[in-house]
């Protein structure tokens, strides 16, 4: 019912998309600009709600620990460190299985 009503109003949706894309572009500029200032490499994007960042240069701080069954890889250890410091990002291992 809700979806039907929404999808029927295509002029309204056209207006939604104009505003949405303005905000999405602004959000991307904010995030991309911050990543550049912090010299964190990332892939340029033109769509979506995400940015693919490269944190590989920080993996050296998380050497493998064979006896840690939960976080066996440096990438997962970095992921957990980031979570414990307030930010949850998807590690690359999730994306390339």
């Amino acid at each position, binding site marked *: 019912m809700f*979806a039907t009503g929404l999808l029927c109003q295509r002029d309204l949706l056209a207006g939604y998309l104009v505003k949405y894309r303005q905000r999405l572009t602004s959000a991307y500029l904010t995030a991309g600009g911050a990543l550049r200032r912090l010299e964190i490499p990332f892939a340029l994007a033109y769509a979506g709600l995400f940015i693919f960042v490269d944190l590989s240069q920080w993996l050296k701080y998380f050497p493998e620990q064979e006896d840690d069954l939960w976080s066996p890889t440096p990438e997962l250890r970095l992921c957990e460190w980031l979570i414990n410091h307030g930010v949850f990002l998807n590690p690359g291992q999730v994306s390339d299985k």
Partner: protein
Amino acid sequence: MFFNVPFQPSHRALDAAHRDLACELHQKFRGRSRYHAVERPNGLIDLSGATNSLMSDWFDRYTAAQPSLNASQLMDCPSPSGSEDLLNAAAGFFNDFFHPSHSVSPSEILAGNGATTLLDLLLWASCDRGDAVLVMTPTFSMPDMNLRADITTIPVSTAHISDPFDPSAVSDLIRALDAATDGAARRRGVRCRALFICNPAALQGRCYTLKTLAELAAWCSRREMHLIANEVYALSAFGPGSQNRAMASVSDPGQHAPSTTGFTSILSLPYVGGRPPQNVHCLYSLSKDFGMKGLRMGFLVTRNSSIHAAALKARYDLR
């Protein structure tokens, strides 16, 4: 004597429990309070899912203006494919915003509880147990295609291709897909039955061109595979004018800015032999572009009436 002893899940359920790293991560940290600017400023900023909260104010106003529900709207049982009104509305939506080469009719749409559920249904209807689906990586965490449809996922890395979305790279993509398909048959004895892509691509935030989509569809046809496009970010492409401004603003001067292209739907593929492509299927939901993850509203658009009928039958039986 077994009343108080819990039975263990099935072997396949236990096996599946250890396959999904993303799910394990979320489970481990689900107890952490999430960030809120006022109530929980020290909470965890969760960027692990592509949550769209950019237009919450717009939806606040929209939902406040909607009429109240009545009991019959909650109690009436719709068709397994979705109500006629919903399918008509969805068809109009796709025709207006996805620019299909051939107008989408309501009979070519199946509505369901999100794109993932419909993907599961589509795989069940188009692939046999033990078949495989090719997935180009890197990609966002994939739903476990083995879970119910009993499908093997074959990742196809594109890391060696400098820009897999540039139309000039399509021959490299085809080579990688051929190698993965032949390798799966030779080493694992599995038949690849479908290629799954995300367009715009989740992680990279890039769109495939019509040329690339057409080449991928032609390749799938030669290899007797379905092409399944998850287009849940279809309307989240930056506007044409803003693309260049956005790129110029954040590009490293030494970084080569990839070619820009707006969104082109898989539904835009031209006719073949007087008919729209029959083995190309589009998945969409309202969870990303419109941020309505809680609504659980997804759509499958397929011109293949046999696949549509098979999926519809399964949906009927699963109600």
